[in-house]
């Protein structure tokens, strides 16, 4: 007998779970396929959970979700080899429930989310890799899995298969991903006593801190580093565009190792016990790199659709929101008795254009090219800014006016007046 579902969701990450949860809640017959031994076992994230996107589906998630620390302080550092210039934003308002952001550990969080999906009525099958989409002409009618007799059919297939987006590539829905549109991030998790973390980061209870970093740690490559506090562990990582990684000779793990040796970072992670090393691609291509995200009988959600805001380090919320929005589109069409074809699914794209997902990506649509074309932003400027601070702060008998002149000439020597003005204009255009 041919097994037919209302919907098949490929993948049990943030996007897939959001889609499957929403569909199942509405009473649809949902099959979710996950290639890992359990949900989360193939997934990697920093990881920060933004409450808003989850709250819209599961308002009381805080009751039992495995959350690490709620974030009360955001640090942004621009690093030179032995120094950093930074801003810290810390607010007691972020220390009052309901909390806005949390650090999470994905393997634990995804299991919890998946439990909710299954309670909502979706059927989850793990340890099953989808090898290709089943087509009837232009229309997707199901999936083929690596299990025996593993052909399964559905009215709609939602692809939440992650950044590599192999299934849509194989089906010819989009081209292979370009190196300039993804970053490779490597990270480690270091365990240490809760008290050590709290004293090092000046927090107590379940409050936490994130540090986002840019500058010399990426050796001129377009990229950033991060350090997040979990309850009893820290995650530290660095990511750079693959197109930049491709042009140089430092391995990703050497880059991470050098970052860990930075005199401002080393004391924060000292004594920790490293328990896992992970690597993952991050879809950072932005608005212009978003592929076709729907067609006859199929939709793309989450990383697979390039839904990530690299500037604000947001991903899981875009994943959940696209997953939920795709599901809601399907539910509405089903209720109206309309076919799930490209013409009717187009409303999914317009819903995303009307909400923060594509509005935010659109806002920064030029940023990508600006940074790609200007490595100064990741090398020269961090150095210049740090040197300027050093000159200003160091007391050595030189008068302040001369110091200012030295700083100015240092900038113009390295980038020229036209270069500086041009860079300022480009930055403004990028963030406008």
């Amino acid at each position, binding site marked *: 007998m041919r097994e037919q579902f209302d919907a098949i969701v490929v993948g049990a990450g943030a996007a897939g779970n959001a889609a499957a949860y929403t569909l199942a809640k509405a009473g649809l017959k949902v099959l979710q396929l996950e290639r890992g031994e359990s949900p989360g076992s193939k997934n990697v994230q920093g990881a920060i959970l933004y409450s808003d996107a989850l709250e819209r589906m599961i308002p009381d998630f805080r009751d039992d979700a495995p959350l690490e620390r709620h974030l009360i302080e955001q640090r942004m550092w621009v690093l030179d080899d032995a120094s950093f210039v930074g801003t810290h934003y810390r607010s007691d308002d972020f220390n009052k429930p309901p909390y806005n952001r949390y650090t999470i550990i994905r393997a634990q969080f995804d299991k919890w989310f998946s439990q909710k999906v299954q309670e909502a009525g979706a059927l989850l099958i793990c340890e099953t890799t989808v090898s290709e989409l089943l087509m009837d002409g232009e229309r997707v009618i199901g999936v083929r899995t690596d299990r025996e007799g593993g052909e399964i059919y559905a009215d709609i297939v939602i692809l939440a298969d992650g950044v590599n987006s192999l299934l849509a590539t194989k089906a010819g829905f989009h081209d292979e991903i370009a190196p300039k549109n993804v970053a490779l991030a490597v990270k480690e998790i270091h365990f240490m006593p809760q008290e050590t973390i709290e004293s090092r980061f000046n927090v107590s209870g379940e409050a936490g801190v994130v540090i986002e970093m840019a500058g010399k740690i990426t050796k001129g490559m377009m990229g950033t580093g991060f350090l997040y506090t979990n309850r009893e562990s820290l995650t530290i990582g660095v990511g750079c565009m693959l197109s930049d*990684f491709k042009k140089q000779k430092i391995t990703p793990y050497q880059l991470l190792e050098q970052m860990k040796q930075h005199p401002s970072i080393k004391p924060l992670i000292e004594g920790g016990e490293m328990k896992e090393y992970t690597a993952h691609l991050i879809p950072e291509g932005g608005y212009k790199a978003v592929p076709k995200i729907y067609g006859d009988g199929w939709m793309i959600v989450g990383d697979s659709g390039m839904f990530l805001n690299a500037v604000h380090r947001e991903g899981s919320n875009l994943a959940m929101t696209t997953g939920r929005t795709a599901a809601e589109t399907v539910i509405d069409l089903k209720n109206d008795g309309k076919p799930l074809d490209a013409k009717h699914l187009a409303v999914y794209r317009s819903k995303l254009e009307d909400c923060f997902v594509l509005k935010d990506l659109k806002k920064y649509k030029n940023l990508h090219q600006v940074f790609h074309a200007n490595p100064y932003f990741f090398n020269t400027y961090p150095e210049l800014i740090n040197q300027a601070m050093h000159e200003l702060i160091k007391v050595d008998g030189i008068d302040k006016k001369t110091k200012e002149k030295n700083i100015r000439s240092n900038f113009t020597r390295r980038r020229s007046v036209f270069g500086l003005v041009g860079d300022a204009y480009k930055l403004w255009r990028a963030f406008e």
Partner: protein
Amino acid sequence: MSNVKVEEKLFQNRYRVDVGRPHVKIKDADICSNACAQQQCTVCCPAGCYTVEGNGRVVLISDGCMECGTCRIICDEHRNLEWQYPRGGYGILFKFG
């Protein structure tokens, strides 16, 4: 800088290796040896799965693979990899992720 060995990092990870069924394969070894000047997979793979031998031959051992996709995407001039996810349940199994 400490000369870090990626093997020491990977040692912390959990894998279920699908013995005899690697999920990534080099299509034509001669292309790597003769046509590819950079052999950038030997630099960029975060698990160090690719090594280059004295004779210029690139050797792939995918046991430590974290399934990120880097090698496939950077091989954009030659498209010389056959890259699939492992069979269900096999490969990297992240403890924390």
